[in-house]
């Protein structure tokens, strides 16, 4: 990557003078997927500009692990808004170092769109970066949390995200031979497929079951 491109795009974010030019310049910066953009993109999460924050989150997710490291280092100092966006970054990357934070977010965050992103993210954790013992504990914890989310969250879209998350964790657990996790997820999904009040959630749970069966 030519460094002058990065520098000029960083500069454009610095000098953006309207909400729209901020969005455009953040999109251009995020597009580079350059680690040198991480700090600037993280700063954007605190600017109270949702369009720009969406672009920054997308960019940070694309950068992956180094972005997750930076977010994890700084997250304690964030205000609520920035923290919500940062959790979306962690959920999108699936960095196992953020597992406890993502679990807590899926179960307890105030904002339904943040719970939704966290619940979905729990299905896409990079399990291969953990030892077998850590994977086992992590997958049990994720399963416990998501089974509760899909049963108890009052928002359909969070339950829908939780169903997608459960499908992901069961697929990972099946590879590791964790039959207990796979069985519990199957039962939880079966319950949602027949009993959720919302047809969209029932359909997604049914589809998750069918996909897991095909993989088995």
């Amino acid at each position, binding site marked *: 990557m030519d460094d002058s491109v990065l520098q000029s795009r960083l500069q454009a974010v610095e000098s953006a003078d309207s909400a729209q030019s901020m969005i455009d310049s953040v999109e251009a910066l995020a597009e580079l997927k350059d680690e040198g953009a991480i700090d600037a993109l993280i700063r954007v999460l605190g600017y109270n500009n*949702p369009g720009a924050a969406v672009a920054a989150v997308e960019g940070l997710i694309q950068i992956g692990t180094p972005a997750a490291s930076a977010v994890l280092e700084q997250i304690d100092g964030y205000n609520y808004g920035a923290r919500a966006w940062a959790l979306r970054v962690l959920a999108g990357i699936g960095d196992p170092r953020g597992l406890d934070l993502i679990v807590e977010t899926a179960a307890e965050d105030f904002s*339904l*769109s943040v719970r*939704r*992103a966290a*619940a*979905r993210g729990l299905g896409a954790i990079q399990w291969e970066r953990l030892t077998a013992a850590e994977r086992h504990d992590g997958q049990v914890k994720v399963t416990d949390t998501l089974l509760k989310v899909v049963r108890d969250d009052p928002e*359909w*879209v969070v339950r*829908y*995200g939780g169903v*997608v998350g459960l499908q992901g964790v069961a697929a990972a657990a099946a590879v590791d031979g964790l039959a207990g996790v796979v069985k519990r997820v199957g039962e939880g999904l079966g319950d949602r*497929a027949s009993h959720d009040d*919302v*047809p*969209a959630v*029932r*359909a*997604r749970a*049914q*589809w998750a079951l*069918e996909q897991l069966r095909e993989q088995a």
Partner: protein
Amino acid sequence: MADSQILNDGAPQLTAEKAIANLRQTEDTGDRYYAAWWLGRFQVRAPEAIAALLEALTDEKDRDTDGGFPLRRNAARALGKLEDKSVIPALIECLDCADYYVREAAAQSLESLNAKESVDDLLKLIEGGVRGAVAVEGKPHLVQPYNAILEALGSLDDGANVPVIEPFLSHDVPQVKNAAARAMYQLTGENQYADKLVDTLRCDDLQLRRSILLDLGEIGYLPAAEAIASTLAENSIKLIALKGLLEKQIQQSKILVSDQTRKVMSLMDTLL
């Protein structure tokens, strides 16, 4: 809803009994206004609640500086949420109210209550056709709540009034045009009308894109799935729209997982 149902978001906490009492008293207009909203929000279907809301529809005490009737608006909205068809005649009378927003709320509630007997009264409001559908001077709205009326007709009419609705497709105000397209699609089932909505998803106005997304969700127009997913708007709204498509499909086919529903769910998964 149980009497103990409380709202805990910083707003005053109420119970059904307290809300009914607040609506019946006439001293504090703020309490009455809030109580009317609350009874609708928490779907309190007790006969006392309905009676108090019906009474509020003819309230004269709560007036705003424009001569409008704020309490009547909230009462008309609330009555649309209680699934009690006995209130339909009273809502039809509200269509003659001098307050534009009361007429709008009444039209929306008549639609929610599936009040097919209100079609003739709704049609009366748009008798002047497109030519008569002009702005009120000094107000941010037209002479009638055309969006609400056209939307209601789209749900309630049996297709007999298509010739009355069709001309509104060429109205200058985008929201009116869209409401007409949505109604025409509902009444004729022809894709050309829903496709007009899909085309408008590319417009520059975010508010308008959001409202079309919700329209497409409500009519459950399956061919719009990809266009919805790629519209520039919040994922939460796109998910609501796609849920509408998915559930319409499920309702029609009685099958949860099919090629069509899988396609919609795949798109939804990318927006979580």
